[in-house]
């Protein structure tokens, strides 16, 4: 992974650690804060609800106390005492109830018989055991009871909070039992006061309800045992929505922060790594031979020192390399001259000796002169031919022409070369992968293949064997291998086998492999001597087309 990428990711990771540490902690604190506030709100609402219930009971209490003392009730008691009672008695309780904003009012005689009922006028004359039971409680007691009401679908029972007051008239005692209903109006009032969804339940029956219960709610209850339970469901939707909103905001800001951290990281890492990349690039170019490569980037501090040092080192390297090259060139020419002198000198010695012998024989008039002349002439011609070959190869080695590149099939070329060789003592095996395309000079490449096959053939000229030519490729390269089963290259010559005038053959010029190597080099490839258990194994590698 590149340094720039590593540094950028490091910046990002650092920011991520901070976010991952802060956000959950902050959210947890926020949740606790919101929950606490919600709880306080619910507690306050419940206090208000309980106060409302208490107020209603107190109002009923006060209304009933006032009723008990009022002349209206005395008048009703008088009517109830008459025989028969007047018709107006049946509706008297209804009038009294409405005037005092009560929701339940029944006037009972001492046996519990209804003299008049405000909440159920049709109950006239019937015994009401439930309300009669209330008269046995203390006068200031508010008693939860189930009262009967007329509904469109039939009589129904509803919870109520009632209290009883005695009314004495003459010798008879009447009871006024009245109060308020725990019903729809109460539920609505609590709903408006607390904002909660209110449900009034009596046993298994739902008496009243304000809307649907929220999906997520905190439930509190007001108990009116044994007749009713008021359930207040405080929706947590608001709090949950706030939490979600805050979480979204946190995540948004965190994402923004991470993005900024990434951008800054990329910018900073770029600033840091750019000189390093330039140095790396320059180093690569220098390694590729471009000794003029320098780094010209503004930098500060250690990086600036590094760049300046690198540039100085580069210049020194270039100078040194040039000197070295010059020296090597001189050394190489000296070597070539030495070798050439040696190669030229070798044939000159027998030529000179032959001529000196002939001169001596001629001077003496030796009868062997003609015979010796023929032998010597033949030897001289042979040495001259040898000189000529040496000069030709040297000339070729010295001025190898630039390759004329064209798209070739290496396998086809190898097959064509192999066709020049007839099997006999030596057999030729081809292992050629089809369609191995290279860009090369046909003549030069043919010369290389011929040279390698000829060397392999000559190494087995006495013993015979098999010459194998293998052609293959991969995505980047194509190669041709020539293997023989001859004596191979002696170990002491392996390192110098591609130098001019190094040969294992008697009569060889020692330029074939150097020329082949140079051709390979001119084609951006290489020629190698590979290890082999038996014989020699040469591989020509070229860039694939």
């Amino acid at each position, binding site marked *: 992974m590149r340094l720039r990428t590593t540094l950028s990711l490091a910046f990002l990771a650092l920011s991520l650690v901070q976010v991952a540490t802060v956000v959950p902690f902050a959210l947890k604190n926020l949740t606790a804060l919101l929950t606490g506030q919600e709880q306080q709100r619910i507690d306050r609402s419940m206090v208000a609800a309980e106060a409302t219930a208490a107020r209603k009971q107190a109002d009923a209490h006060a209304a009933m106390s006032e009723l008990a003392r009022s002349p209206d009730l005395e008048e009703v008691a008088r009517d109830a005492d008459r025989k*028969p009672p007047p*018709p107006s*008695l*049946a509706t008297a309780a209804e009038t009294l109830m409405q005037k005092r904003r009560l929701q339940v009012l029944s006037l009972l005689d001492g046996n519990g018989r209804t003299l008049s009922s405000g909440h*159920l*006028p*049709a*109950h*006239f*004359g*019937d015994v009401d055991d439930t309300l009669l039971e209330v008269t046995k409680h203390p006068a200031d007691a508010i008693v939860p009871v189930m009262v*009967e009401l*007329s*509904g*469109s*679908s*039939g*009589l129904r029972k509803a919870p109520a909070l009632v209290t009883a007051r005695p009314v004495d008239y003459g010798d008879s005692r009447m009871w006024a039992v009245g109060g308020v209903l725990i019903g729809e109006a109460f539920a609505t009032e609590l709903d408006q006061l607390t904002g909660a969804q209110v449900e009034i339940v009596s046993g298994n029956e739902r008496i009243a309800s304000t809307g649907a219960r929220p999906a997520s709610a905190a439930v509190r209850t007001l108990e009116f045992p044994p007749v009713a339970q008021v359930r207040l469901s405080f929706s947590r939707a608001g709090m949950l929505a706030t939490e979600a909103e805050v979480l979204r905001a946190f995540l948004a800001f965190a994402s923004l922060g991470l993005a900024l951290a990434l951008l800054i990281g990329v910018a900073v890492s770029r600033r840091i790594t750019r000189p390093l990349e330039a140095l790396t690039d320059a180093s690569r170019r220098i390694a590729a031979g471009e000794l003029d490569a320098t780094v010209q980037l503004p930098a500060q501090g250690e990086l600036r020192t590094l760049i300046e040092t690198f540039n100085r080192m580069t210049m020194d390297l270039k100078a040194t390399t040039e000197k070295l090259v010059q020296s090597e060139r001189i050394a190489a020419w000296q070597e070539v001259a030495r070798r050439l002198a040696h190669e030229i000198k070798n044939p000159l010695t027998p030529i000179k000796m032959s001529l000196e012998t002939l001169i001596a024989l001629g001077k003496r008039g030796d009868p062997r002169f003609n015979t010796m002349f023929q032998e010597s002439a033949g030897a001289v011609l042979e040495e001259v031919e040898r000189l000529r070959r040496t000069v030709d190869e040297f000339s070729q080695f010295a001025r190898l022409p630039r390759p004329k590149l064209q798209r070739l099939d290496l396998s086809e070329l190898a097959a064509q070369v192999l066709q020049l060789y007839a099997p006999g003592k030596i057999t030729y095996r081809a292992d050629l992968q089809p369609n191995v395309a290279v860009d090369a000079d046909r003549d030069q490449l043919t010369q290389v293949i011929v040279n390698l096959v000829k060397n392999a053939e000559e190494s087995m000229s006495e013993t015979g064997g098999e010459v194998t030519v293998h052609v293959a490729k991969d995505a980047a390269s194509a190669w041709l291998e020539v293997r023989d089963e001859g004596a191979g290259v002696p170990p002491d010559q392996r390192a110098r086998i591609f130098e001019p005038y190094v040969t294992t053959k008697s009569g060889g010029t020692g330029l074939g492999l150097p020329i082949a190597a140079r051709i390979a080099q001119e084609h951006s490839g290489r020629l190698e001597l590979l290890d082999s258990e038996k014989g020699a194994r040469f591989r020509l590698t070229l860039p694939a087309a």
Partner: protein
Amino acid sequence: MRRVITLALLVSVPGSTASRARYGGTLQLALAGRPAEADGLYADTPAEATLLALTGRALCLSPFGVTRPTPSTVRIDVPPTLKASDVAALLKRVQTEPSPYRALLGPVSQISVAGSAVELKLAYAWPDLESALCHPALALPGAGPFKLSAPGRYAADPVYAAGRPYLDELVVTSTDDRGAERLFTQRKAHLAIGLAPKPDAEKLSLAFATALLYSPSLPPTFRAAFETAVDRNDLVRFFVRPPAAPLLPGTPQTKPAALSPVREVTLLYDASLDDQRAVAARLQVRLAPLGYRVALKPLPRRELRARWAKGDYELMLFSALLPARSANALALVLEAAKAQELAQKHLPGLGALDDEAREEKAKELLVTLGPSLAALPLYVQGLSLSVGPTVQNLKLDAWGLPRLDDVFLGAE
């Protein structure tokens, strides 16, 4: 079915000193309550019938003339100011509309217009048809002595065929009980209708009957359950506006066991009648211990009659203004209880009897057939009337309803 009805045909109401009739003046009438209907077929409460008689006219009264050219034909002569076709259309409507009053024209098989008269052909002898034509439900609208000039204001028709009324105008103020009483006691109203009657008030006719109709789908013990649970005297005394009287059952019943499981029934009643609302609530309470869960459903009167006509009810409070003659009343009762078979069986025979025998026989049949009808009689009501000292010549018709067209105002 027994009923307590005092028939007082054209009874003069005391409380006014006799003086010479004189034209003019505006009679102020205070009405406790608000009449809901103006159509004669549906305006059958005593107060509604009273007001409707100002602008409509019963076919048995002048200017109409009712004769019987043959025993099976009744002829109604229509004055020139009115159309015979209107009378015929009214009678045909009575026969076809969902109303118990079609029983009044039960014997009529054909209605035809003959010049300025309407002829009614009878399928069987029915001497009481002329009496039936006096029923307020058969009054011809727009044929009365007054015209409605504005809401609550009735102006006398100066060219009324039977002679213009003495009064110039009659003004009706609808208010509650206290308001009506206040108007009357403060002498801002000459007449008050609907106030609670004084203990010494004249015994007026009670012709507006209410019964509880029930569906045959109810358990067979329903009648017994009702009779043992509901006290009609309490109903009349505490839940119904006076003057009223209970319609007592003929035979006592044994209290049945409460139904289990509870039977849910719906009680339909007239939404415009407070008395029916109170009675319905009372029935709801009294039937609950016997296993009946009664749902109350108030309906407009027209819708109530339509449901009655189709038999689409489980329980229904049904009120009607009973005819003066018992035979007509029997026909109406059988019609209301949907006992068409009994009507076809008994009514033609009744028509063949003489007046006295027919009256007795009809009363007997009302009693004997009562237990077999899907109807429980509850009570009858009349119209209470408070008359000021200046009101003169006030008469009551066969239903105990005041005839205001002959009234005049005397000196203060």
